[in-house]
């Protein structure tokens, strides 16, 4: 029986570009924009085999989000948080791939909350006090949607 092959890097890059474009275009609607941002960081970028492209795409997502929001006096906090959480997700998924869809959703929800807290911490360090908004709630509530999609993209190997 042949092993399922992971998603080719070119396709994954294309998907990341689409997510970046969506983040830029959806800037007037912060809720859907936050969903695409979380999908890019937690599902697409963390799925790369190498940590360098994963970190670069996560950082690009953070810069794109802050650039489109234009509400922070100094940027870079979101990109730093994205890189950290992306490496964490990549490491965890490499060592403990998910067994079931529900457990994967739970992991993604926990990462989503952690991502939110870390992002706002970094933004506070970089730019000072700021508004939180409801983007994190959009991301959390749509975990079953983009989590299922990312599970299909990730093609997890069975635990031996």
């Amino acid at each position, binding site marked *: 029986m042949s092993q399922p092959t992971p998603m080719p890097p070119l396709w994954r890059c294309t998907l990341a570009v689409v997510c970046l474009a969506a983040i*830029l*275009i959806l800037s*007037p609607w912060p809720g859907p924009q936050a969903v695409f941002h979380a999908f890019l960081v937690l599902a697409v970028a963390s799925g790369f085999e190498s940590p*360098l492209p994963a*970190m670069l795409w996560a950082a690009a997502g953070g810069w794109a989000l802050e650039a489109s929001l234009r509400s922070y*006096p100094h*940027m870079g906090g979101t*990109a*730093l948080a994205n*890189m950290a959480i992306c490496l964490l997700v990549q490491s965890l998924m490499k060592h403990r791939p998910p067994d079931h869809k529900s457990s994967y959703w739970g992991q993604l929800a926990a990462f989503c909350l952690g991502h939110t807290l870390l992002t706002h911490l970094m933004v506070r360090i970089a730019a000072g006090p700021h508004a939180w908004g409801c983007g994190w709630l959009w991301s959390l509530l749509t975990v079953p949607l983009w989590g299922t999609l990312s599970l299909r993209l990730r093609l997890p190997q069975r635990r031996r």
Partner: protein
Amino acid sequence: MRPRPWGWNPTGRRRYAILAIWLGHIGWVILGHGHPGRWESVLGTLSWPARKLSALFQQGRASRSGQVNNLKQAQYELTLTRQRLESLQMQNAQQAPRLQEADEAIRLLGLKKHVPLEMKAARVIVNVRTAPFGGMVIDQGQDAGLVKDQGVFCPEGVVGRIWEVSTHQASLLPLDAYNASTAVMLAQSRATGVLQGVGPGRAEIRYVGGQELVQVGEPVYTSGLDRVFPRGLLVGYVVSSHQEGPELRIDVALAAPLSRIHQVLILPPQPRIELPHPAAPPSPGKVKP
């Protein structure tokens, strides 16, 4: 041989790149505070498509909202117009009888000016002419000086005569009643006869000689011989005639719409047979300045 993780090989260079990116970000976040004006301009240029798209979307929403508001306002105005139309129609229906009565009063006034007699106007308050033992009742009686057998007519023609008089009201005997008799004459042959009612809106002339020439459509006037009506009031028109023994029986359609009369004029008792001609209007040349 296993490559060294921090040597100048692909693995090491990747690690150096990751470390540089990390340090660069941390340094930028902590130490990179500066004047944001240039960044603001760059970001403004980058976010132009998104702002344009958002502006188009908001414009579309505003336009749609405006159209909905216009539609609601138009529907509200249409509802108001319908209510006003219904109100006007109801008001018109309420005033229709008064308008009809006013028209009849105007025509009566004109007729009164053309007939040189002292006449009284009265209003028909009951008109059950076609019912058994029915008739017409007017709102004038003995208090207005009315007596029996006074002639009654309207602008269209003769109506009948007063049959009974009470204090405040009087009943009429219309021309089409079976017991009504009126002295009439034909317009062209000048033959005289007696008009008797035969049914609703119809009457016949009796006692006209068989040698008289009668044409269908010929007007029938009062002859004045019964001393109830003066000579020359229109009664009706000849519908048909047939020979019956030595005399002619002439069917007449009455001119007065007896079922739709609301106001009548009452002639004085026993008027003259011939009416004097009304005074001619003064000519402009005889008027003194």
